[in-house]
């Protein structure tokens, strides 16, 4: 598979009142052409910061991208001129946010915003842009699309606004769509509608980076999955492989602690302890205090990301040279 986007060794920190906060550290991941990659992990683990870095959307100050390369085709997104970045933004790469109100202007009619987005990137007359906008509102399942063009975002329900966002993200037929928790704020029945829609609208050659903390959503939408924990990538694997044979103990524990709709009720499996603070990560493996498989080396050294064949795990158990068989 041809790689469309490749993030290598990305580190992002924020200067806060309490000190330097490590949001993302040494993150590497890649997305193939036409592929859907899921990025999963618990709150604060660095998913959104990773995604925002792709389009250089990290507010600075307080944030700074300390190191790394982000290749989109053969260009490094972190060093290209602002002008080129603006062209890519919206046209080649578009973003769907969790809360559509952050991306839609509250003061402008929906139609106006769609037309504006088209004309920003394509030299077409307004009437053509308007026709295309109406067509897309219809495609994403908005009733009476021509009339809805006149609505302001606040006049639409949450599900409708998310549909408008999706129309906006898809109508320029981008190569990569970044969807950051696109359904988290929605009710499950509306989430089901929106997920169906994203699946149906996405062209085969479009790549999707889908960020979520919901393993069920990952299962339904993705081909490959990258799991983050405490600002780092801890595992990347093909979807079924990840659930059948998790390589990292965190992935394994996470999968087991999800409450399920079938099987035994009552007590849930838990991961004891809590995530270390991003203001002061301990040395060694960041999961070791909560890991039932930890051994001495986990405390002494930080495990690297062992990579082979588009599969990766940041755990000494995946080290081909780990000789002492851990308990």
């Amino acid at each position, binding site marked *: 598979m041809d790689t469309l986007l490749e993030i290598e060794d990305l580190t992002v920190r924020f200067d806060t009142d309490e000190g330097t906060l490590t949001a993302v550290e040494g993150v590497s991941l890649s997305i193939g052409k036409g592929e859907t990659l899921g990025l999963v992990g*618990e*709150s604060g683990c660095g998913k959104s910061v990773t995604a925002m870095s792709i389009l250089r959307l990290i507010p600075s100050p307080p944030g700074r991208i300390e190191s790394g390369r982000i290749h989109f085709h053969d260009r490094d997104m972190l060093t290209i001129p602002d002008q080129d970045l603006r062209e890519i933004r919206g046209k080649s790469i578009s973003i769907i946010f969790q809360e559509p109100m952050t991306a839609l202007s509250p003061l402008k009619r929906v139609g106006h915003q769609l037309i504006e987005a088209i004309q920003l990137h394509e030299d077409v007359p307004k009437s053509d842009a308007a026709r295309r906008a109406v067509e897309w509102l219809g495609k994403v399942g908005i009733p009476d699309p021509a009339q809805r063009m006149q609505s302001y975002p606040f006049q639409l*329900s949450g*599900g*409708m606004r998310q549909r408008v966002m999706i129309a906006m993200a898809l109508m320029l037929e981008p190569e990569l769509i970044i969807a950051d928790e696109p359904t988290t704020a929605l*009710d*499950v*029945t*509306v*989430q*089901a*509608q929106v*997920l*169906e829609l994203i699946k149906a609208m996405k062209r085969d050659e479009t790549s999707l980076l889908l960020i979520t*903390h*919901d*393993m*069920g*959503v*990952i*299962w*339904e939408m993705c081909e490959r999955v990258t799991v983050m924990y405490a600002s780092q990538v801890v595992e990347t694997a093909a979807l079924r492989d990840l*659930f059948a044979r998790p390589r990292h103990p965190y992935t394994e*524990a*996470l*999968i087991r*602690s*999800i*409450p*399920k*709709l*079938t099987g035994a*009720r*009552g*007590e*849930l*499996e*838990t*991961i*004891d302890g*809590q*995530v270390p603070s991003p203001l002061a990560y301990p040395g060694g493996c960041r999961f070791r205090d909560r890991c039932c498989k930890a051994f001495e080396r986990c405390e002494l050294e930080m495990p690297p990301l062992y990579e082979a064949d588009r599969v990766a795990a940041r755990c000494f158990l995946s080290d081909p040279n780990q000789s002492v068989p851990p308990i």
Partner: protein
Amino acid sequence: MSNAVATSPALLKITDLKTWFPIRRGVFSRTVAHVRAVDGVSLEIREGETLGLVGESGCGKTTLARSILGLDPIQSGSIAFEGQALHTMRSEDLRRMRRDLQVIFQDPFSSLNPRMTVIDIITEALIVHGLIGNADRETAAIELLNDVGLGHDSLHRYPHEFSGGQRQRIGVARAIALKPKLILCDEAVSALDVSVQAQVVNLLMDLREKYNLAYLFISHDLSVVRHVCDRIAVMYLGELVEIGPAEAIISAPRHPYTRALVSAIPQVGVEGKGRIVLTGDVPSPASPPPGCRFHTRCAHALDACRQSEQALKDVARAHQVACMRVDEL
């Protein structure tokens, strides 16, 4: 356990409860309509029982809880605690009931006073109710912290020094301090990450065993509700559409709305193919559709569904559904 539960008396009994909010317009603030947040709900919770209340945002779950707590004025119907209706209670009865009825909210960040230390937060009610003196404060607090799995080094710290899961534990300690009989949990674990959520869910279940607590467990997350609850009530636009044993509601739901709700949940290992995808949005509770309120989104609706309102009817032991086509579907 379920046998004991079935024969124990009702701790909380809600009968045909309506809680409406006026919509006012114009210079004279005339009431032009009502938002019918809770519109004719009846249910019971027995001693030691956990009843789940599920439904989508805006369906009236929180208003129901607030009505029970006396925070939202009710339009009609009644709420009785241990056989006595709230509106007939005299002040000492109300005071006693407030000890027996506690609440845990969703947001562990705003439900704790940021200027109080943990010891003050969790023992405040004990002092107010005159159950302990100042001298016993520390002993009582340590015992409570122990119950919720926090160390005594937490005593003199402030809420902002704790993680979300730990703050929710502090909220739980505060709720159990008076050894209540019923705790209303309104999305109590919804803001937490899965691994932490599992810890707090287990804690709530352990405490239930230890103190014979009953819970009204409000959540939009059916998978969590299934793990915790004995029975589940499903709410849509201010009304209950189905109520029954937890396992039956999840594995063999009968109301078309419950079916759609359960099938909408993405689950690892399950293909989304057989999913019932509802069309349209939830109608406004200010002008609910006539007849069965779900008919505008129901694939099985007939003309008759648009005309006659549906009451809950028995479909099995302790299982009721409000749908006129329940036998055919």
